């Protein structure tokens, strides 16, 4: 498992290496824990950023399958999913198996514009069919200047770490 995670990181760094030269990129690494159960379905996962007024400003990742269950990502659904179909379509990708994944964020909002200095919150939500739901969040400030976020594993989500640039 550790080896796979390291491999993914190396590959990601190789793929996105050129981009980091142009713009400071934040890396968010999250782990989907292996859960021993007779009926395992891959979790639906959303990663996004809200501003100090709890308004969503950037959807970083969305791993889902069928629209029926999007609502089970309760906060994501209220804040983004139910009203911004175009964004959901643009960002959504397939669900992922247990493992470690690194996401990249250029620090801009959904429209590609720069975010003003201020307080923001990183949200990671996961919901699994016939399983549980977890919501992890962590406040940060922009400009972040290499601030590090660490969120301990809980329920459907493994450890989350991020370096915000």
């Amino acid at each position, binding site marked *: 498992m550790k080896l796979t995670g390291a491999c993914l990181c190396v590959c990601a760094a190789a793929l996105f290496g050129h981009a980091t030269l142009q713009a400071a990129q934040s890396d968010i690494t999250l782990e989907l824990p292996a859960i021993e159960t007779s009926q395992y379905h891959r979790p639906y996962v959303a990663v996004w950023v809200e501003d100090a007024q709890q308004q969503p400003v950037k959807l970083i990742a969305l791993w889902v399958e*069928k629209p029926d269950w999007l609502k089970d990502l309760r906060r994501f659904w209220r804040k983004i999913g139910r009203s911004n179909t175009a964004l959901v379509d643009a960002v959504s990708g397939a669900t992922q198996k247990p493992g470690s994944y690194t996401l990249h964020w250029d620090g801009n909002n959904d429209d590609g514009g720069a975010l003003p200095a201020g307080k923001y919150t990183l949200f990671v939500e996961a919901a699994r069919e016939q399983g549980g739901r977890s919501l992890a969040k962590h406040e940060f400030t922009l400009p972040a200047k290499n601030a590090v976020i660490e969120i301990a594993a809980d329920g459907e989500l493994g450890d989350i770490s991020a370096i915000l640039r």
Partner: protein
Amino acid sequence: MLKKAALVMSALCVSASVSAHTLWLVPSHYVLSKQDSWIAVDASAANMTFVPDKGIGLTSLKLYNPDGKAQDVTTVYQGKRKSMADVQLAGDGTYRLEMANPLRYFTSYELNGERKRLMANKQERTAQLPAGATKVETVQMRSRNFAYVTVNSPTQTVLKLQNAGLEISSNTHPADVVAEEALQFVFHLDGKPQAGVKGVLSYEGELYRNDAGRVEFETDNKGQFSFTPEHAGRYLIEASYSADTATALADKVRESVTFTFEVALP
């Protein structure tokens, strides 16, 4: 004559026993993320919140579409403990499920020391009251039971007040109600905020806890009742308002309403 009286009596008993219960509508889903989804709507008259007790007729159940147009709900089943309706929600937006009873008039009186009741308004009662009836009083009654269901993006149209009878508005859209966030309801009578509306707030699972956690309230002079739901889950508000408002047809008015809603996880 005796048979007819017995029938009337049994009808009154049934209506009295049902009215002592609280009638609610509980959709299987309050929030959906797919068009054309079906929902099941449970309805029952019961003492314990969302523990079905008596099935009820659903002939007056209506579905208000996001554009405000109402349609009858025809796929219904009345069971002993609860009734159920199948409802398909075609487009995006907020829907209102409502069961509203028309105005009804009850005249109560005393005869030889016994309390009795008639289905009659003030004009009809003269012909029906027996000689010697005392303490005659006619009450106009109306009840309304409703719930909102939202498919994808929430809309406002079906939340608008109908300006008739007792209604509830809120500063939070029903699809946005979240545990640990303050919630405010305003109770309106015929479209105006009404003080003195008495109600009870409860939530599911009463059967499995010792403290039911019910909150009794009375609206303030702005018609408001505020609270912060502690737990996510399905909630019920039952409320009523009585006033000695004499009209041509009644001496008193009694309006009642039940409303079920979902409190989502933060």
